[in-house]
């Protein structure tokens, strides 16, 4: 499978492509797609902000510093997510495959480039509403592909993959809510002036 076959497959035949990626586990290609999509998205978002005059107005070097920092963070999150998904699947279903999850998740972000690209095109055509909608749809597409990536890489059912995908996020939300409640209670017990 060439890289063009993979990219085509991610858009038009995602299930079979993810299965093949889970089998071959092309980690380097996955990384290149992931980082390429990240920087392309950053560039397109900056351009959209520049046109609609709502950017941060950062000078060039600060902007690229921020982009590089964001890229490192995104790669760390990608690694941690893959590890977490694999670990959870191993704990709950007795099978983990970190490298396959990592490779598949790397490729799963590819349609995500269409969101910022179409949003930018829509801004140029003075149709920001349509652009925002397309952006949202592309985000949902990526989420769907990520669930598919988890499913194919860990040979799970769709329900199991959704559970594995949502579990870390749900846990973070729960812990966050608990901390807020505890913090709120602690604050309310303080004497007020």
């Amino acid at each position: 499978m060439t890289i063009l076959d993979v990219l085509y497959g991610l858009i038009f035949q995602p299930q079979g492509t993810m299965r093949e990626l889970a089998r071959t586990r092309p980690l380097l290609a996955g990384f290149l797609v992931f980082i390429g999509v990240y920087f392309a998205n950053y560039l397109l978002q900056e351009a959209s902000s520049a046109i609609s005059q709502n950017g941060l107005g950062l000078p060039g070097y600060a902007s690229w510093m921020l982009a590089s920092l964001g890229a490192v963070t995104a790669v760390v999150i990608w690694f941690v997510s893959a590890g977490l998904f694999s670990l959870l699947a191993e704990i709950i279903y007795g099978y983990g495959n970190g490298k396959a999850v990592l490779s598949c998740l790397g490729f799963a972000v590819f349609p995500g480039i269409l969101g910022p690209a179409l949003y930018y095109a829509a801004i140029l055509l003075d149709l920001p509403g349509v652009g925002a909608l397309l952006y949202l749809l592309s985000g949902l597409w990526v989420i769907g592909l990520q669930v598919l990536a988890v499913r194919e890489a860990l040979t799970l059912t769709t329900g199991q993959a959704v559970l594995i995908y949502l579990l870390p996020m749900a846990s973070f939300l729960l812990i966050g809510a608990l901390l807020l409640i505890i913090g709120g209670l602690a604050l309310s017990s303080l004497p007020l002036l």
Partner: protein
Amino acid sequence: MKKRIVIGLILVFLLILLIMAVQSISQPQAGLKSIGKIGVIEVSGTITGTSTSNLLQGTTASARDIMAIIRQAAARQDIKAVVLRVDSPGGTSVASQEIGVELDKLRATGKPVITSMGDVCASGGYWIACSTDHIMANPATLTGSIGVIMQMQNIEGLYEKLGVKEVVIKSGQHKDIGSPFRDLSPEEQQILQGIVQDSYQQFIDQVVKGREGKITREQLMPLADGRIFTGAQARDLGLVDSLGDYYDAIEQAKVMAGIQGEVPIEVLNQQDMWKRLVTSLESTFLGNQPTTRLYY
């Protein structure tokens, strides 16, 4: 084959958008739509040659930055007119002159430039205002102060108390003119007075040129002794064209640019947090040593 064509088309589409994105970032006006805008350039604080601001001093208006913004306004197709918002007591003579020259070049492109005076627009601030097509002041604005000043300190007495003696080896008689370690000689005083007078003459010429048809050299001379005026007094004397606030100046810009209806306003040199911080640190730690300079 079909796969390659489809993915190829998608990739080409993305590549074109990425190239356009790079253009948009380098030139924010690039796009399919081209709406005219009023550009606002803020000149706040003492006008200086380089530093933008210093953590240890007040705000300064860097001529280098302002000139770059003026050139940008001249080059940008979407900027139809420029409002120069001046809130400055003046600054170094060269910095004011450089800004004035760039404003003249901007006007030569056919874009009207309007000055909107804030609290103070005096001396060097007034110099640059004279390089604009229309000067608008608030009635209570302080303006004028047409003149040149050169100030030096003599800290010879302090050095004596500290037991420090300066040793000077110079190639010529006047190489240490303006030295803070001794009094000026009458000859040196004459030389420096000549410089101040020449610079003052340049200021007079700038005002006469900028206010042509509104005030004559003969009318100007009695007013050009360094005194300040309120905006209302300056209007009556012909030093400013009209009274009004910032938004009136925007309206004036629209009228002079022939723009009707609502128009976006873009502050061209709005300082972001990062740049302010970086330039402040740069200026504080790497700033120029104070030297004798002429001030308007």
